[in-house]
């Protein structure tokens, strides 16, 4: 036991006999009548004024409504504790609380650092969610696994808290040997007694109940200590896993709302995107160069400042326009240039001849001051064109020649050849060139005067407005359709593919068995598609489900109608307005770079902006259209096992609006083995084909001598999959041959996939989903037009779609490799396997830790039934 001054004194002091009735000799001093000569000894001897205050401690009944106030009080307490600790007079309880504050501060430090390092908003947000989940799990585990079961089973909360007389909140049972039982009400005691079946009339019942409560609480605290460690990280990981999609959806919702708002309130919103940098930078350039002759350096600085928020191509146009606007072909000469001319003459003469004598006489060679004054006086301050400047240069050169001749006469021999070379060295190849002309033309007649400055300021103001609009539109396009995490497109893609794995009923076991190899995934998908296509109802159901999910997801995120409609309209309006204004200001080259020339926007910034949306949108659409087209192909095979639909194909003759299409038939009958080969290649292309497969990797191994008697249809297994009677991929791998000459084979494959009819079942299933139907039709058309007659498709002679000019020359696909790649889309096996693997990994993790978590929870909860049983309670009595 510790002691202090007062206690020590009290223990050693002889007290009055009757402390209730103090002796008359001792004056009772109350604090209200404290004397100026206050004597501590006397005061302590008369202890009646020092007495315990009435206790204010009480059990805290936590309830959710009081939580905000309690939180605020705790914060105030922590702040006070912080102040006391800083001053060095904090108590143990305050320091204990500050430990928690420190822990949270450290956690915030980690989260803030990782927040900075993560690249996407959701990942950034998850750092703080993770931190909050960790701290929440600490209390949540105790609450769920121990507190609630204990309350239910034993009738009291072993982790109940109390507030002591000093306002400090503490846990009641935390110290097993210091328990202020006075605070526990009889009601609680009776409830626990009843629940613990402690006899009603037991002597010292309260003691027995208290001891029972102490035992149970201690056991709960110990159990908490043992389980909190493994449970907290587990629970926080589970919380994070569950919260990540919620955060993703929430972010996506608000991000979409914000981005959609750009188009809805464009005129207001675009103002927020005005950086002001253009005007600021242009003004600083003008300030720096005002009144100076406009040269290349100034033009560069101005055009860069004006177009800093746009494509560098626009800067080129702007520079050309400014050059046109601000420069002239005249130059001003000044007497001040005399010195430079003298230096230039000297350096030219020295560079031509190595004659030391000549070098020594250089002062006599260069034109005299009188000579130069005569020349410059004539032109001083005048605006001269190139011819006039040349005249001036000629006068200077004449002076030099005159001086050389004088020198020759005075004895220093200068041969004619040297004189000729010196004269030649003053001139360049054309009129405006040469060292002298360079000196004379360094002061262009046009300067950056007020008028020029005003014009540039006008351009800057308009450019600044335009860039604000362009920035707003770029933000819209990027957030909607860019291939980046946390964009609308990214979210849509992930969500839809995830749904697709569910629609195709791909099980965890199937993912497990195919996860190491993409061809295995392809086989799995092929088998899935075959089985779905075999059953009409199921086929329609899958198409409908997929189309429904596609429609809902894309319309709630990417909103292709807005992208193709409102966005393009606004884009064109902004560009048209700026083109008009810049046109009025005479910036024709800039306008060209912005919107193109004569209605042709090729290579313009407008075209680039439009293409960004088109390309990104089509990469998504084509990948998913490919899924629907694949299903359609499998259904076509079921409907027509003879593959007759592969024999009909269209041929396009002529170009653009002059072109017309003819339908042709391949009349050659197909052997069953060939049908199987056509089917096998089509199957491969639908599920796994990449753009490279259509161009350089199209070597399909076939049997050079197929069974020439069997012309029957394809046959099916009982589960709906195709049964190959002849085609044997493994055997063909070693014995097969790539038969280049069989053009019909390749044509049939392409016809079967892209040019055959859309199946009636597909059409009926897509009746309500026009967006999907249009997408499918567009995809098939693109595949036929751009891939089907691809120039380097396997071999030029094997193009799938014949397209001819009316003069008989062949037309090949005009699409760029990039565009063609977009048309082909992502291979289905790659698309599905990436998402399926992610799901598989998550499931594996869940399986492992769900078991551990549930086991831990079970043991912890069940342990309550073994708690209690204080020795003070003899229930038999």
């Amino acid at each position, binding site marked *: 036991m510790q002691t202090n001054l007062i206690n020590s004194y009290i223990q050693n002091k002889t007290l009055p006999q009757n402390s209730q009735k103090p002796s008359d000799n001792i004056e009772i001093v109350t604090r209200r009548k404290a004397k100026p000569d206050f004597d501590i000894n006397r005061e302590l001897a008369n202890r009646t004024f020092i007495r315990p205050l009435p206790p204010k401690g009480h059990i805290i009944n936590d309830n959710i409504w009081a939580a905000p106030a309690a939180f605020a009080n705790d914060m105030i307490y922590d702040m006070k504790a912080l102040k006391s*600790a800083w001053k060095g007079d904090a108590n143990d309880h305050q320091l204990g609380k500050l430990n928690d504050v420190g822990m949270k501060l450290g956690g915030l430090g980690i989260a803030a650092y990782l927040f900075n390092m993560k690249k996407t908003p959701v990942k950034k947000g998850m750092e703080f969610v993770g931190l909050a989940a960790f701290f929440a799990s600490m209390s949540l585990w105790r609450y769920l696994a121990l507190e609630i079961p204990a309350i239910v089973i034993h009738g009291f909360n072993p982790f109940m808290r109390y507030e002591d007389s000093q306002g400090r909140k503490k846990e009641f049972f935390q110290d097993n040997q210091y328990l202020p039982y006075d605070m526990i009400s009889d009601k609680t005691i009776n409830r626990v007694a009843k629940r613990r079946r402690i006899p009603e009339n037991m002597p010292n019942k309260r003691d027995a109940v208290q001891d029972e409560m102490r035992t149970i609480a201690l056991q709960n605290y110990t159990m908490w200590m043992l389980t909190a460690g493994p449970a907290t990280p587990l629970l926080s990981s589970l919380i994070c896993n569950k919260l990540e999609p919620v955060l993703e959806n929430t972010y996506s919702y608000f991000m979409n709302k914000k981005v959609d708002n750009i188009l809805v309130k464009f005129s207001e919103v675009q103002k927020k995107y005005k950086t002001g940098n253009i005007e600021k930078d242009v003004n600083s350039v003008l300030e720096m160069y005002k009144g100076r002759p406009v040269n290349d350096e100034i033009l560069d600085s101005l055009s860069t400042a004006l177009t800093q928020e746009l494509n560098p191509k626009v800067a080129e146009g702007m520079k050309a326009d400014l050059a046109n606007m601000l420069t002239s072909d005249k130059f001003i000469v000044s007497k001040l240039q005399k010195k430079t001319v003298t230096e230039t003459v000297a350096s030219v003469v020295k560079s031509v001849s190595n004659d030391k004598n000549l070098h020594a006489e250089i002062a006599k060679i260069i034109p005299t001051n009188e000579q130069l004054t005569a020349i410059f006086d004539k032109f001083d301050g005048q605006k001269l064109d190139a011819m006039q400047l040349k005249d001036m240069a000629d006068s200077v050169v004449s002076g030099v020649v005159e001086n050389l001749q004088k020198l020759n006469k005075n004895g220093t021999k200068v041969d004619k050849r040297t004189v000729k070379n010196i004269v030649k060295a003053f001139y360049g190849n054309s009129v405006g060139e040469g060292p002298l002309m360079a000196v004379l033309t360094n002061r262009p007649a046009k300067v950056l005067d007020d008028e020029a400055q005003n014009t540039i300021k006008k351009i800057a103001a308009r450019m600044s407005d335009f860039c604000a609009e362009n920035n707003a539109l770029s933000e819209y396009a990027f957030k909607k359709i860019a291939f980046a995490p946390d964009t609308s497109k990214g979210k849509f893609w992930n969500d839809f593919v995830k749904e697709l794995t569910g629609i195709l009923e791909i099980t965890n076991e199937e993912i497990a068995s195919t996860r190491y190899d993409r061809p295995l995934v392809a086989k799995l998908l092929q088998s899935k598609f075959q089985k779905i296509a075999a059953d009409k109802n199921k086929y329609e159901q899958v198409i409908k489900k997929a189309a429904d999910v596609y429609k809902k997801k894309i319309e709630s995120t990417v909103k292709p109608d807005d992208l193709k409609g409102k966005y393009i309209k606004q884009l064109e309006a902004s560009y048209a307005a700026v083109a008009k204004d810049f046109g009025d200001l005479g910036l024709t080259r800039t306008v060209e770079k912005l919107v193109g020339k004569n209605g042709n926007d090729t290579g313009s910034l407008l075209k680039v902006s439009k293409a960004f949306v088109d390309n990104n949108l089509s990469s998504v659409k084509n990948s998913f259209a490919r899924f629907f087209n694949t299903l359609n192909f499998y259904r076509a095979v079921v409907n027509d096992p003879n593959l007759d639909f592969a024999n009909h194909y269209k041929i396009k003759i002529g170009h653009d609006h002059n072109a017309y299409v003819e339908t042709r038939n391949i009349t050659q009958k197909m052997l069953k083995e060939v049908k199987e080969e056509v089917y096998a290649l089509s199957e491969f292309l639908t599920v796994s084909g990449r753009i490279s497969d259509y161009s350089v990797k199209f070597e399909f191994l076939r049997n050079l001598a197929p069974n020439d008697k069997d012309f029957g249809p394809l046959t099916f297994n009982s589960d709906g999959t195709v049964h190959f009677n002849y085609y044997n991929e493994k055997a063909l791998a070693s014995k097969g041959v790539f038969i280049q000459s069989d053009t019909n084979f390749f044509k049939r494959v392409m016809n079967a996939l892209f040019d055959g009819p859309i199946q009636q079942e597909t059409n009926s299933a897509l009746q309500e989903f026009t967006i999907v139907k249009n997408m499918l039709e567009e995809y098939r058309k693109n595949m036929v037009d751009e891939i089907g007659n691809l120039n380097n498709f396997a071999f030029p002679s094997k193009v799938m779609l014949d397209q001819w000019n009316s003069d008989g020359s062949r037309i090949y696909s005009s699409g760029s490799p990039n565009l063609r790649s977009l048309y082909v889309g992502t291979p289905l096996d790659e698309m599905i396997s990436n998402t399926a693997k992610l799901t598989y990994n998550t499931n594996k993790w869940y399986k492992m830790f769900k078991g551990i978590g549930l086991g831990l929870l079970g043991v912890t909860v069940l342990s309550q039934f073994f708690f209690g049983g204080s020795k003070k309670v003899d229930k038999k009595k």
Partner: protein
Amino acid sequence: MILPVQNYRNNNILFTAKQDAHAKSGNVQEPEKEEYLFVTHNGKRISKSELKKHQAVPVDNNLRNRMYISWDKFSNAITMYPARGLKGSKNSNFYEFLTMGTVPYLAGSAMLMAVFNSANKLFATHRDIASASAFGKKMALGVLFYGLAKNFSKSFVTTPVKWFTGVDTEQPYVKLCYKLPERKDDGDTPSVEFHKVYESLEFPYWNLNYGDTSKGEPMNIYYDKVAKKLGLGTNLKDSDQDAKPRIKEIAVKTNFAKTFSSYLWAAVGVCVALQKPWDDYFKVATLKFWQPKRFIASMGTFCDSMADSISAFVKGPEGAKGIKKYAGLTLAGTAAASTLVGIVNVLTSSNKPSKLDSADIIEKDRKYVVN
């Protein structure tokens, strides 16, 4: 001078009614062989009889003792204390509860490592396994660095404070605790607890710092030294009374500074562990010390990766600008600043000498409570 109060004087007291226990202790027939504790005081191992005599004995604050104390606490925290707690023993005390606080820390760390690593090998592809493992290993290292940085960084504050003030705020002592008999035939069941003199700042164990007068030591030997170092003067009549308020202030401020800064250093530890250069170490990491060549090479790479990671953490990612570039430097700077500011605060006394008379110290308008 106020003398220390010794509230436990009877060395032979026993809390048991068991006869043979009495026979064994008080009236010993044959002198028992002296037993010693593992820990030392003034360089000598503490005998059990000395502990019984004094009830609490200071322990040298050296590495050996600290390691032993940690081991003793840890082994009890995973065996005896939970067993006693789960039985609901009345002898389970607050010390045991606090000591058991190590268990969730260690078990939690292990589980955190497991959460990021155990399931990885079951993932779909080797690529998934590799990428998950690379991250998982860094997380595991982060957990390890958190613990190491948090514990070691405390000495960044306590050691300078000890140098400058002479006050060892981490001074441990060993205490003998007699347990209450739980069964009729229970004998004496004393248990040994390791505390720190300043673990309670409201009730520091001042007594332990007094000199042993029976051995000729001056009573205030410790306080004289501290008072001199704190600039309170030499040859003070009651150096203990003069020094105690200042020591208490130092202990509170040190506790505060070490707590706050240790969590910030722990954060630095985690962030350093998450840097890219650790990938190099994990490629060659091995703990197989029985393969010395590999092990040494691995440790060499560990040091290189550590240096590179610290550099990457402080300098920020290549090409980064603004907050991203300086995030690491800011965190490390905050941790270092918290340590420095904490130490400076400890060395600066907030309590100016009172100019009031003693009569004024008791405020007449306030209510007072006897402790």
